[in-house]
């Protein structure tokens, strides 16, 4: 980046050097430790100057009209021409020679007056308000406000106190101070302007008229940035007072973004007097999620304390699972493993931490097996990520004019919503966003160019970009920075491998590797899809096991039967299955000989490696459910039983071993991972909450450490051969089935989120109108879709979303599994 230009501004008589172009409120805070109070201003959004809280005196040096020299008074001080009226600091960009006064009576009066005005119609709800304790209005009133109100009327203006804006967010119209932050968030940050003001003057209030109501994947963020308690989530409303809670740093357990979050814990009667998650808040990490999280993270935590959790080891006897002691369970497993003679396979889901992956691997390797399968079998190409993944220092929040983001085969909003949010912002800053997919996705709305290719042919399209999309090829070639983001939608595993290779080649050929904001990204499933690769697990191994099932299979944190109808057949051929599971699933119900209860991310510590290869720590927040244990620990104890050495005492110790053994993790330890540094905008902690008013939690748990790529380390990276796979072809009477991802689905864990559950779509499939006409299907009809040995019944959605000859079938909406990857099947009207 170019050297930042500095300008000199004078605040309260003292000169400061500040970066040119910075907002005055930010500059004063960052460089002069002068906290100009604000309500409507938010550093992530364009200023609007509405609340008038940030008024300051502003002036410029007087200049001699003839010489243009700055005029000085007798004492040699610069003579300042102060503007007659106060100016809002939030709408000013610093400029050289700017003079500001923030401590004069005039300014103090203005602050006092604006607060008094705000309080004229604000209800005295503080004792029962969720925001009490982290409310900007409360804090600023203490600091700058009137002692008591002069607005004494028997009736204040009364407005509605409980207005559900959607299923998740509730508005208290009386508390709203009309700062429009929520409206602007939806408009500017999300790009979905479903909130607005209604009427005017004192009756101005927030409405939504979209159908369904306030319905976005990011709605919860409005409750964070609302400076008062006007917006609350149904999940947290009246749940706890901010000061009663303890913030525990954690990581989004759902997707590859690895959003930094805070689990706000409180001892709770509903949970037997133990600490439970009262709310999930974003934790600022400008590299990763800034200060935003998706509603899935915010509202999806209920499974951590669900009654359904498996709380003790279970052993199958006469077909029934019975509770047993850990000793008995582990002895049984150890016995089974020893008897297998090394014919052992291990399949681990993408939600297991690095420590889990490592510890389990030790057990299996120790018994002479190398069969480490990653689950689900959708994304691959980890080795290419290791070579040319996005360069160290990448920050999607810095992409802008001249840069290109090329998204292929992904429905990014559904797969990694935070990336969608940040790339949309990049688009607004001028980056060219190119979206290619076999069908229309939401990201098309924020794209500079969109391209379609035949389903399954993403790699074909990209490998031959010059022919298939010359404009895209040109844009890519001339991009200042280029990120290629791949998904696996509409692809087989081979198809994704080829796409990854084509993407890597393009990056290498155009020189966009080994630099920040350049390189390859992929929407690996789960929180640790990339970690799986680094610790030796591959989906190809899972495929190999399906072809030649092992005698004993360990399945950890993978609800395999829910992921593809073809799985049941090969699991049937496995002699003994051992399950490591949090919740009952198909495997525990039908297949497992032993079920070992594992802890959720909230009950233990560990690390995940996100899609950008950032290794990040999450911390223990909640006590264990029953006798469950962290997965790594179970593995360690098992190892002990098998004579592989003593169990480790902590996850930190496991990480030490990883660091010593796996080059990618070299030098990493829990201390390094927990390092933080000052971030801009500086959200600050609770004491500073009035600045951005409880926007997000301060980052206390660590910003994480990024694994460098080969290109980062200066190693030569070479383009490889793209093995274009055959594309599933539908025969007569057949359809190509394109499985898609929905953020809200009925996967076992997410299903337990009581607040979001009603918002999960009824199972549906998108069918092309031409096909629908042929089959006599209209929207809403129930259709049966059969493929990979299974079949599901879903509602047809005839909307032109699916390419002709195919159906787009969202995964995990039904109780029956739908195919994991693109395939061929039958569709019929029921």
């Amino acid at each position: 980046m170019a050297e930042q230009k500095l300008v000199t501004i004078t605040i309260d008589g003292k000169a400061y050097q500040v970066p040119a172009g910075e907002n005055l409120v930010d500059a004063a805070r960052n460089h002069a430790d002068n906290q100009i109070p604000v309500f409507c201003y938010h550093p992530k959004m364009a200023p609007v100057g509405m609340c008038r809280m940030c008024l300051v005196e502003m002036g410029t040096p007087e200049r001699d009209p003839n010489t243009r020299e700055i005029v000085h008074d007798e004492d040699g001080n610069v003579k300042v021409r102060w503007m007659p009226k106060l100016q809002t600091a939030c709408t000013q960009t610093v400029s050289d020679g700017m003079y500001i006064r923030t401590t004069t009576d005039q300014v103090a009066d203005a602050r006092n007056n604006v607060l008094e005005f705000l309080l004229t119609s604000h209800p005295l709800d503080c004792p029962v308000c969720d925001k009490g304790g982290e409310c900007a209005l409360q804090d600023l009133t203490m600091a700058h406000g009137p002692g008591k109100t002069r607005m004494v009327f028997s009736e204040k203006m009364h407005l509605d106190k409980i207005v559900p804006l959607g299923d998740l967010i509730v508005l208290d119209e009386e508390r709203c101070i009309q700062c429009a932050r929520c409206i602007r968030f939806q408009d500017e940050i999300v790009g979905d302007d479903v909130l607005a003001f209604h009427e005017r003057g004192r009756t101005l209030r927030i409405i939504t008229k979209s159908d369904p109501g306030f319905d976005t994947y990011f709605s919860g963020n409005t409750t964070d940035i609302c400076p008062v308690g006007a917006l609350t989530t149904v999940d947290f409303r009246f749940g706890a007072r901010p000061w009663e809670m303890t913030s525990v740093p954690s990581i989004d357990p759902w997707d590859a973004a690895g959003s930094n979050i805070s689990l706000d814990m409180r001892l709770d009667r509903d949970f037997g007097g133990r600490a439970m998650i009262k709310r999930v808040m974003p934790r600022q990490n400008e590299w990763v999620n800034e200060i935003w999280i998706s509603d899935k993270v915010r509202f999806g935590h209920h499974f951590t304390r669900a009654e359904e959790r498996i709380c003790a080891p279970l052993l199958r006897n006469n077909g029934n699972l019975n509770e047993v002691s850990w000793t008995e369970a582990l002895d049984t497993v150890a016995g089974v493993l020893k008897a297998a003679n090394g014919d052992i396979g291990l399949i681990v889901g993408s939600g297991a931490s690095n420590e889990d992956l490592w510890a389990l691997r030790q057990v299996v390797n120790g018994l002479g097996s190398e069969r480490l399968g990653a689950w689900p079998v959708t994304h691959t190409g980890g080795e290419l990520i290791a070579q040319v993944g996005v360069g160290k220092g990448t920050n999607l929040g810095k992409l802008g004019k001249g840069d290109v983001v090329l998204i292929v085969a992904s429905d990014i909003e559904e797969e990694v919503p935070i990336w969608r949010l940040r790339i949309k912002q990049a688009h607004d800053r001028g980056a060219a966003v190119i979206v290619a997919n076999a069908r229309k996705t939401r990201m098309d709305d924020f794209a500079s160019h969109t391209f379609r290719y035949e389903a399954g042919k993403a790699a074909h399209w990209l490998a031959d970009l010059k022919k298939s999309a010359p404009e895209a090829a040109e844009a890519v070639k001339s991009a200042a920075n280029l990120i290629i983001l791949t998904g696996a939608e509409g692809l087989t595993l081979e198809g994704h491998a080829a796409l990854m290779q084509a993407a890597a080649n393009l990056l290498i050929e155009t020189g966009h590797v080994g630099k920040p904001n350049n390189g390859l990204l992929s929407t690996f499933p789960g929180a640790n899809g990339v970690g799986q690769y680094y610790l030796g697990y591959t989906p190809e191994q899972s495929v190999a096991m399906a072809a030649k099932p092992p005698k004993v299979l360990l399945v950890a944190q993978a609800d395999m039967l829910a992921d593809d109808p073809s799985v049941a057949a090969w699991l049937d051929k496995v002699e003994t299955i051992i399950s490591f599971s949090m919740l009952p699933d198909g495997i525990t119900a039908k297949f497992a000989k032993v079920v070992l209860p594992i802890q959720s991310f909230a009950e233990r510590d560990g690390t995940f490696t996100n899609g950008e290869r950032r290794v990040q720590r999450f911390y223990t927040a909640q006590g264990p459910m029953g006798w469950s244990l962290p997965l790594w620990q179970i593995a360690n104890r098992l190892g002990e039983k098998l004579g592989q050495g003593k169990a480790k005492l902590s996850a930190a110790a496991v990480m030490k071993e990883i660091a010593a053994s796996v080059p990618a993790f070299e030098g990493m330890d829990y201390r390094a991972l927990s390092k933080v540094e000052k971030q801009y905008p500086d959200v600050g902690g609770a004491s500073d909450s009035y600045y951005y008013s409880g926007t997000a939690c301060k980052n206390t748990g660590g910003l994480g450490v990024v694994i460098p790529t080969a290109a980062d380390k200066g190693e030569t990276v070479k383009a490889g051969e793209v093995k274009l796979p055959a594309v599933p072809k539908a025969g007569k009477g057949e359809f190509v089935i394109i499985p898609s991802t929905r953020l809200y689905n009925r996967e076992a864990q997410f299903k337990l989120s009581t607040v979001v559950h009603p918002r999960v779509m009824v199972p549906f499939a998108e069918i092309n109108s031409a096909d629908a006409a042929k089959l006599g299907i209209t929207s809403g009809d129930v259709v049966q879709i059969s493929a990979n040995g299974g079949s599901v019944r879903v509602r047809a959605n005839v909307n032109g979303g699916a390419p002709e000859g195919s159906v787009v079938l969202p995964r995990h909406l039904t109780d029956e599994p739908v195919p994991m990857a693109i395939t061929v099947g039958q569709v019929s009207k029921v």
Partner: protein
Amino acid sequence: MNTLQEKYADRIETTLAKYPDKRSAVMALLYIAQEEYGWVSPEGIQDVAEVCDMDPTQVKSIAGFYTMYSERPKGRFWLQVCTDLPCALKGAEKFHHDLKEYLGVDEGGTSEDGMFTVEHVMCLAACDKAPLLQCNFHNYEHLDMEKMKVLLDQWRAEVNAQVNKS
């Protein structure tokens, strides 16, 4: 194609042609919706949103900001009496009061026969012709209750004639 697009195609097209941006047509379209539905109904909001390529929330927001869009059903004749200062100096407040009493309605209310809605409004920029009112956006000036009664009868008769015809 929604109702507005079907019934008012020409007017919508002329309106859209005025501006470089569809959103600019929202105000004119809200008038059309009001004309079609008698008020700015949810259907009207939806229709306008589709034409202007806006979220219905934004359309509703516009409808709520301006006083000439009625967000609830009203009588056939929307009588808006100016009672602002210059008119008030000329007895407009009394006129407004008497009119409401004559029709038996409260402020903003509609007469029992569904015919007249009475509302006071701010300055109509015809202060030299006080008292005056606007009925369905047309001005009637230099009024008093006697003239008013004649007008009311006349309007009622017009509607009845129409009803009888159909």
